[in-house]
């Protein structure tokens, strides 16, 4: 087990290195840089000014030197300063991290709360109208674009409660109730959408387990159906469900670009889009690396959890 964990941790290194190299290359291949973009609106700017600024930002260095700087920085956990704002990249990210994590956790909780009961009910009532309604409901969630659902939600909220997406978000530490009332709507939209995958997974996984011998045994010894379902069937079918939910959480962490746009949430997704648009190399590199790290790390945790939750799985 220990060897497995260490091996998996080591395997993360080449993956993340690959992501770092790819990001570095892609960003340099994309035409335009931060200096050109900054002055693109301001008419004619003397070439010396542009050159001086490029020098200051280190953009005139040869590529391999820039890459060495980038790699050296990673080792020291120093991602440099944002090319656009000049502030340290870690500061920029720290300001947005809280809201992104909170939204991801809230959405994942809502999705789980929706998915588990619905999936179990759909499985128990397989091929009945209840099953069909639940499946249509969950596939519908997958089919509706989150930005559209968001727009509909805002339209409805505006009409019903005169509620509009706030311009400034209140941090949870300042005023938890105000904060929740702001984040609950995007979390509901995202949670509904991502409950769909988990619901389907719960359904198929419970269906599989329900045919197993020990479920029949449990029924034969006269256990109540609820006990059979919850203690015997659901517990044994949770593994794939946990996988799906964790991977969704990893995705939600940085993938809510469009929803953030619609609900005017200043999260990491929006930061990334802006950073790419501004060719803010350092910020993009740090963000992509962060997202990939979360993704790879959650994957790793899930794999280790497998062995803990299911003693039959052993890692050699």
């Amino acid at each position: 087990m220990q060897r497995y964990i260490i091996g998996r941790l080591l395997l993360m290194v080449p993956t993340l290195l690959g992501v770092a190299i790819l990001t570095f290359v892609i960003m340099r291949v994309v035409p335009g840089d931060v200096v050109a973009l900054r002055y693109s609106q301001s008419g004619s700017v003397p070439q010396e000014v542009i050159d001086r600024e490029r020098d200051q930002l280190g953009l005139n260095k040869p590529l391999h030197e820039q890459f060495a700087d980038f790699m050296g920085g990673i080792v020291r956990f120093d991602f440099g300063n944002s090319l656009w704002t000049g502030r340290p990249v870690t500061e920029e990210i720290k300001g947005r991290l809280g809201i992104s994590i909170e939204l991801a956790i809230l959405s994942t909780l809502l999705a789980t709360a929706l998915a588990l009961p619905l999936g179990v009910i759909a499985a128990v009532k397989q091929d009945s109208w209840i099953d069909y309604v639940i499946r249509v409901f969950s596939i519908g969630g997958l089919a509706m674009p989150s930005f559209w659902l968001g727009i509909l939600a805002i339209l409805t909220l505006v009409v019903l409660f005169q509620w509009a997406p706030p311009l400034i978000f209140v941090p949870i530490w300042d005023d938890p109730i105000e904060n929740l009332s702001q984040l609950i709507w995007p979390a509901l939209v995202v949670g509904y959408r991502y409950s769909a995958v988990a619901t389907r997974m719960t359904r198929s996984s419970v269906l599989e387990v329900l045919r197993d011998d020990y479920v029949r045994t449990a029924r034969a010894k006269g256990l109540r159906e609820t006990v059979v379902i919850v203690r015997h069937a659901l517990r044994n079918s949770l593994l794939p469900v946990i996988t799906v939910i964790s991977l969704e959480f990893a995705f939600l962490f940085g993938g809510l670009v469009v929803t953030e746009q619609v609900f005017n949430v200043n999260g990491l997704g929006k930061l990334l889009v802006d950073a790419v648009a501004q060719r803010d190399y350092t910020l993009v590199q740090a963000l992509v690396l962060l997202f990939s790290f979360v993704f790879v790390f959650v994957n790793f945790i899930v794999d280790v959890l497998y062995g803990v939750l299911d003693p039959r799985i052993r890692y050699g």
Partner: protein
Amino acid sequence: MTNYAGAPPPQTPAVVPTHSAEELARRRYLEDTTARRFRRAVVDFIKRRPLGTFGAVLIIVMLLAAAFAEVVAPYGPNEGEFTGLPTAPSLEHLLGTDGFGRDVFSRLIYGSQTALLVGFSSSLVGSTLGLLFGVLGAYFGGKTDEIIQRIMDILISFPLIVIAIAVVAALGPGTLNVIVAITLPVIPRVARVVRASGLAVVRMPYIEAARSVGVRAPRIMFRHIAPNVFAPYLIMLTAFLGQAILLEASLSFLGLGVVEPEPAWGLMLRGQGMTFLDQAPWLAIAPGVAISLSVFGFNLFGDSLRDALDPRLRTA
């Protein structure tokens, strides 16, 4: 006992053999032509999977709308006089007109061409490349497999939005580049599933047999392995069809996809829909319904296809 000509007929009349239902099904199966078997599978699908059939109907409607857009749409996609303000739905314009005086209903019809083009080409190319990498990895194993897997890991943990933005920034926006951006993330996801099924196939005795009679590697891969992992391939393909349409809409909504004046659903939402959200909400609602219904159709159909082909395959 010898039998000779002119022998008296046996005392008991020839008994018409009565076969069990399974035996009859087996004989019918053997006598069947491919076409007949296909027809029976379709009838069976319609009878047993009402939701999937409904999905198929939605898909067919969409295909027809795209194929006969010139006939179905009352106006051209870019026909209309600039008015500056949208008009409400009327008998003349079923879903009203947008700020450019263009008929929304007609643009929806033409938009299905864009959605289908992007959806089909990116999921087809992406899944097929995924199939290729998956089979390669499963067949060769060892170093080759390891390298392919690491590359797929990198691609999977790379945020989609960065790929999309990079492609658009490097190649410029437009339909073809959207297809490239959506194809890339499909590849590793299909490759993983195909590889997993391929690993089981590679251990089959017939592969060993083929190898021992000197069949070359490419032939084994494409004639012996690929057909046997076709079910997961097909399932992933249909699953990603809906997702690709959704992604195209999202990218277009973010301004990273199809460009005006091309009629695309996500773009209609972004431009006219968002501008006139208060005064003319139907401009935002109509394309959203079109996106949702088409993705819904593909998802329903894909889901039922998965159930029909391989109930144990877990792809959420």
